[in-house]
């Protein structure tokens, strides 16, 4: 229950212990699937954190960065740094956007005497959400029930740039009845690659076709991952193939939303 004046609730119990964290929702989550942000907030609050949503947030600039457009990327980066740096912790439900802010911003401003230090400071305080819950908070989510089999795709940026692999699997242990089956070649790219799948659609299709074959071969009911772009790519292909596999972001299942419609599903 929150007082009407918008003041934070009394410090809750839990590893988060009233820790204030800002949520950077990311463009895709904002537009395509807000329940990922809501689930992330649920989990952070259950851990005792006080979650703030800075309204001025926009895009981390990854599309410009990946297109080679350094100037536009810097403009977006400066905006985001200014919006996020007042907070002691920033949490992001996406490995790729976290990596952009934590690593690419630092490289972008390496020679900038003003923005370099600010980028480096923010880099040390920004976390992907699953990693934050496990590595920083040591949090065990309250148990929820979802009797189903699921398979996990390790998104490339989360895996290789942030070392996220064990954390989601550990968190998912708190989901009663959920059986995780390993995805063959889980660490092979799904073919999303940001604008890659738009610029080189035929190649991207060949890659995601192999990925969905691997997913279907597991016989799992559910596909999970930590990056919405990749999940949209795989879910979109699965649906086009007529598959009944349901796709969610990991935080949705952890927050008890695993029985709601998955990506691209009707109510």
């Amino acid at each position: 229950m929150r007082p009407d004046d918008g003041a934070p609730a009394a410090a809750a119990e839990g590893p988060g212990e009233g820790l204030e964290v800002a949520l950077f929702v990311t463009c895709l989550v904002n537009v395509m699937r807000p329940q990922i942000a809501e689930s992330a907030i649920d989990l952070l609050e259950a851990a005792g954190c006080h979650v703030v949503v800075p309204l001025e947030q926009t895009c981390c600039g990854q599309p410009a960065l990946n297109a080679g457009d350094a100037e536009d990327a810097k403009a977006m980066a400066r905006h985001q740094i200014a919006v996020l740096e007042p907070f002691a912790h920033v949490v992001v439900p996406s490995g790729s956007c976290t990596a952009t802010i934590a690593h690419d911003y630092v490289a972008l401003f390496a020679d900038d005497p003003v923005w370099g230090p600010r980028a480096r400071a923010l880099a040390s305080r920004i976390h992907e959400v699953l990693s934050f819950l496990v590595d920083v908070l040591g949090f065990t989510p309250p148990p929820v029930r979802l009797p189903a089999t699921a398979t996990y795709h390790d998104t490339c940026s989360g895996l290789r740039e942030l070392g996220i692999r064990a954390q989601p699997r550990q968190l998912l242990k708190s989901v009663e009845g959920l059986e995780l089956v390993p995805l063959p070649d889980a660490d092979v790219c799904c073919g999303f690659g940001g604008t890659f799948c738009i610029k080189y659609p035929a190649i991207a299709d060949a890659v995601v076709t192999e990925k969905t074959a691997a997913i279907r071969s597991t016989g799992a009911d559910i596909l999970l991952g930590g990056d919405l772009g990749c999940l949209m790519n795989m879910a979109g292909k699965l649906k086009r193939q007529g598959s009944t596999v349901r796709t969610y972001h990991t935080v949705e299942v952890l927050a008890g939303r695993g029985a709601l419609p998955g990506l691209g599903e009707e109510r």
Partner: protein
Amino acid sequence: MAQASEIVPGFDRRTAEALANRQLKIAIDRTAGTARAKRAAIVGEWPDFAVARAHGKAIKDHVVAHLGHYLAEFERNAVASGAVVHFARTADEAATIVVGICEAAGAKRVTRSKSMLGEEIGLPHALEAAGIERTETDLAEHIVQLAGERPSHIIWPAMHKTREEIHELFKAGHAAPDLGETPVEMAASARRILREKFHAADVGISGANFLIADSGSVAVVTNEGNAELTTTLPPVHIVTAGIEKLVPSAGHALQMLRLLVRSATGAAMTQYTTFHTGPKRAGDADGPREFHIVLVDNGRTRMLAEEGGLRDMLRCIRCGACMNHCPVFNQIGGHAYGGTYPGPMGAVLTPALDGLSMQTRDLAHACTLNGRCREVCPVDIPLPTLLRGWRTKSWREGLEPVTMRSGLSLWRSLATHPLAYRLGVAAASLALRLMAGRSRRIRRLPLVGGAWTRHRDMPAPSGSTFLNSAAARARAPGRGKGEIR
């Protein structure tokens, strides 16, 4: 006149052809898939492989940082051992030197063991233009020569060919209409045909895996032993090597070899690893009378100048692990890249060697930046960073499409004006929801979105945007998630 690696225009056309080729995919899966599995197995047996890898990187960084010192030391020691050392600034210059040595020796026939540098400098074409018969002796290069094609992989040049295709080539090329179809029979036929060529060659041309500075030696590795036959039988041995192949000593080379062989083929050691130091000596039982080493720049000093950028690419020891693990290479194969070198290392090198242009810019963009290449690189080259570097250069040189430039310009305006951003993306969200209707999925998007929906559905947004709902709550506090600030 020699022609340096010719870039074949039309990346899209080449990838379309490759993607339509089912046999190519089967061939790629067999070769690259086996390579991945074997590499994983042997690296898995070495718990501290990461230490060896970091050390290999340190050795190469040390050499690159002192390239002039080592090049001079190599030259001194090679000359002292009786080798003739030549320098070539460009691909054409290198090919001209090689042809010149052949002509001075009166050579009519040469044998070659595999050398990607030889491909890079256009040696096959140069020898042909000079009327010198060239026989490729590496089995895969022999296959590729019979097919009139270029290599499609730096370790398995003929990986794009199925057994049936090779059978047809050998039946014709070996004049053996009754040739059996098994790999054993085909290889035996090649052994027979090529054995004559080995003995008849006037000149043998090889590459170099390592140039050993403190002895002036050249290290060449093969599994077939064809390099020894190529370089020992004829009276003249010519080595073509990029200047980045230097290492301080054989001890350093042996440490690099442990990384190279595991990364390339998943074995602990190549079958033949030969260090050549000068020509035949008085009293030697065999060996070439003349030993020439052609040291080639061809853009490497330009890469050297880019500290923190392309200089890192000079660490490359040509193992091929990056392409074996690349999801794009595994779909399109090597020829689609259009240059001498394919895969991630090729995407970095091709614009460096052949210039950044409309033809070469695609290579850096046709990449998901997934980073697996960097993970398996035995010398930790930041390939995704270097590929992004080419994208940045390409942008600065105005090679990127106008639609992309104006699109990103617009996006930047929105992303630096929060209210406009929220309204703009909310409008997009509404449009997508209307397009999806009740089905929650969009099967066809207009304009650039069509590239997505050609192959997959687009899930509809699940409701109004998160930030719009948040903004509404900020204006009228009530139930909702998080504090809006």
